[in-house]
């Protein structure tokens, strides 16, 4: 197989080493808070009302948007509130959530719709639909609806299963693979059945030996290969993975599907297996709970919508001030507390001992950042232009290609939060482009107005001119008439004067 390393990246050790990677099923939470807004697209609309009893697996909100998936009740119980909560997002914006209080019974709704018999006998369309109504989205953190992604990759030649575990410290995918190796393999077979790819590659990093062994034991399909790769941060990024495994560099602005590759996270594969084969919609996920303040890291299989507080009650947390973050140390976000709930793309919750923040220094252009940038940008130049809000120059230096992996921030000796600058500049650029477009529209409208006024003026002038000519003609005609009348009168007069004496006489 053609392998081609990408530049940069970081070899990072797991900051929270675990001795035993187990997937622990935790009891049902008393209450779940399910967000209606997903990663992208429109907010789902609740189809239940307060006080209504819902069953586990019942659809409680839908939206007709290909970028979204329906939301299911993750426990059985009563809807107690449909109101706004602060989302676990950098913006701290509020969004609509449905709160369900558990009745402790976990009574399931009948989910055997669509493809009920063996999936091999179902058409791809039936399975797409099944994936859609089961609410499957990318479980690696992107949260993009799987049915849309799979449909986009129709006719692809290769399926890549991303089992690299995107960031150091997160072990939920490894735990999932160790717990359900057969589900992974069978799930891949389901996906191969619908996307018609010739082969599937499971990309897994060499620090997950137990998971590798488990997969190898159950993999008996010659279409599926297990590719063990060195543990390096940012290998999990879709395009970099493609470059490493297939030697294909996806051009800027294109997607993996454009080069005939479908990439799916291993968690998504398992969720898809559950949906298609076992008729279980997406109502739970594996979450890594770790951190320097957590005595023993754990991987918990938890119902969606369970609160972080509930999640954290299953680990021992050391005393002191804590820093709460989700979705990783590199690309995740810091949260102001634990008052959030697990969503479909929450892969980890970290609780770290609060460290003194290091002061930021000036950039000395040491260039360490450009040696670790996996997409070969010049972060120090981007920083220079971002700092001076020179968006045009920053974009010229390919700011928009930044994948925000934070490798540069990690190595920066001056502790500059580089990616924060880039995000800000990207937003600024977007705004400027929008404003420019608006100015363009305004200018066009203004010019059209000018044109219209000019035209009106001209038309009026022409009309006036025409009227004038008409008037002149009329006057000329009148004059001629008058002259004719006068001459006639004169003639009459002269005739009279000739006759006159006769009368007088």
């Amino acid at each position, binding site marked *: 197989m053609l392998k081609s390393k*990408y530049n940069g990246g*970081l*070899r*990072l*050790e797991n*900051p929270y080493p675990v001795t035993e990677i187990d997937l622990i099923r935790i009891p049902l939470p008393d209450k779940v808070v399910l967000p209606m807004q997903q990663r992208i697209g429109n907010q789902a609309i609740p189809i239940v009302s307060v006080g209504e009893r819902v069953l586990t697996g019942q659809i409680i909100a839908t939206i007709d948007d290909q970028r979204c998936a329906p939301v299911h009740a993750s426990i059985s119980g009563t809807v107690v509130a449909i109101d706004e909560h602060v989302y676990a997002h950098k913006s701290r914006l509020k969004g609509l959530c449905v709160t369900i209080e558990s009745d402790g019974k976990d009574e399931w709704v009948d989910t055997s719709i669509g493809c009920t018999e063996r999936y091999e006998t179902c058409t791809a369309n039936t399975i797409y639909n099944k994936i859609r109504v089961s609410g499957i989205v990318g479980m690696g953190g992107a949260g993009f609806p799987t049915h849309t992604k799979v449909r986009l990759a129709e006719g692809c030649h290769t399926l890549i299963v991303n089992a690299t575990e995107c960031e*150091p410290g997160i072990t939920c995918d490894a735990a999932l693979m160790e717990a359900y190796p057969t589900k992974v393999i069978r799930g891949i077979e389901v996906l191969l059945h619908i996307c018609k790819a010739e082969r599937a590659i499971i990309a897994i990093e060499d620090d997950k030996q137990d998971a590798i062994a488990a997969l190898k034991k159950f993999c008996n399909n010659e279409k599926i290969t297990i590719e063990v790769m060195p543990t390096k941060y940012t290998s999990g990024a879709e*395009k*970099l993975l493609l*470059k490493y495994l297939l030697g294909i*560099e*996806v*051009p*800027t*602005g*294109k997607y993996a599907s454009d080069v005939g590759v479908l990439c799916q996270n291993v968690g998504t594969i398992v969720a898809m297996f559950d949906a298609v084969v076992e008729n279980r919609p997406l109502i739970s996920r594996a979450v890594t709970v770790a951190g320097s303040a957590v005595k023993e890291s754990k991987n918990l299989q938890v119902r969606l919508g369970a609160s972080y507080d509930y999640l954290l009650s299953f680990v021992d947390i050391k005393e002191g001030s804590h820093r709460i973050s989700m979705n990783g140390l590199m690309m995740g976000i810091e949260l102001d507390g634990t008052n959030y709930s697990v969503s479909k793309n929450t892969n980890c919750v970290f609780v770290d001992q609060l460290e003194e923040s*290091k*002061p930021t*220094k*000036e*950039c*000395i*252009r*040491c*260039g360490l950042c*450009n*040696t670790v940038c*996996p*997409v*070969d*940008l*010049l972060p*120090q*130049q981007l920083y220079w232009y971002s700092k001076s809000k020179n968006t045009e120059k920053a974009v010229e*230096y*390919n700011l928009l*290609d930044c994948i925000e992996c934070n490798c540069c921030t*990690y*190595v920066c*000796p*001056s*502790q500059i939060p580089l990616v924060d600058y880039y995000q800000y500049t990207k937003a600024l650029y977007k705004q400027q482009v929008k404003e420019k477009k608006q100015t363009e529209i305004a200018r066009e409208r203004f010019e059209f107005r000018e044109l219209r006024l000019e035209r009106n003026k001209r038309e009026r002038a022409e009309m006036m001119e025409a009227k004038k000519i008409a008037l002149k003609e009329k006057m000329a005609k009148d004059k001629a008439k008058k002259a004719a009348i006068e001459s006639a009168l004169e003639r009459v007069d002269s005739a009279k004067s000739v006759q006159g004496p006769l009368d007088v006489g």
Partner: protein
Amino acid sequence: MSDKLLNTNQIMRQVSYALALGVGAQVYFFGLSVLIQIVLACITGLIVEAIFLRLRGSEIKPAIIDGSVVLTAILLAISIPSIAPWWIIVLGVSFAVVFGKQIFGGLGNNPFNPAMLGYAFLLISYPVQMTQWPADYLSMDRAADVIFGLSNLDGLTGATTLDHVKTQLTMSLSIQELEFNSISQLWINIGFLIGGIYLLLRRIIFWQIPVLLLLGIVVMSTVLFLVDSDQFASPLFHVVNGATMLAAFFIATDPVSASTTPLGRIIYGFLIGVLIVIIRVFGGYPDAVAFAVLLLNITVPLIDFYTQPKVFGR
């Protein structure tokens, strides 16, 4: 996570420590006067930096302790003759800090290497004081007397080897007829070379600039040497004399004023090496490092612009 990464302050400190061997060799050959110059330079640098930070309304403490001004001061102090009068180093460091650094906005914003800017200023303004090196080892109190103007050093000074060669060559002697004792130069250069290798191993500097700078010197001097070995010194002479190693590992590698792209560093280093030889051979001053570095500093934005790496997916 994995290996401990250095922060900016630690980088500055490590570079200063790496100078120790070369400075030690200087002390061995010229006496402790070198240390007097370093102390004078550091004190001046810190005071001037503090005054200017105050004038600019910036916070003083974090900028003072980042080690950058101390590094600039040390680099300038070891570049000038160890017996130069005290006001030379005071003036030079003040110029370097004010016009080389603070006027552009402090650390990270200066287009020129501050120490070399200070050096060029001194060399142009005070050529006599800047070319008188002690001919022999000087004791501490003797050196102090000379530096602070309590006695003069007639008869005890000499020109550097580079200077000597240049003067002699103009008197139409061939290289082979010249006798020069460059053992001190050799050892000082070896000292800086070892310090430089330490920086490379600690991944504080990248290999491109030092290696290509030395290559530039070798290539250019070999070309000249092949043209006329009577007129031009050998490549070896150029490598072990003057400030070659100091320039390769400590001066041209100043990240702020150097090129930052991988290919850019190669071009930057190589051209400095070539220029060093050209200016040494054909220029009017004994050593050429300062001018070569400053000239290339000016071209950095251009080099960086045209050597951008290919971005993934483009």
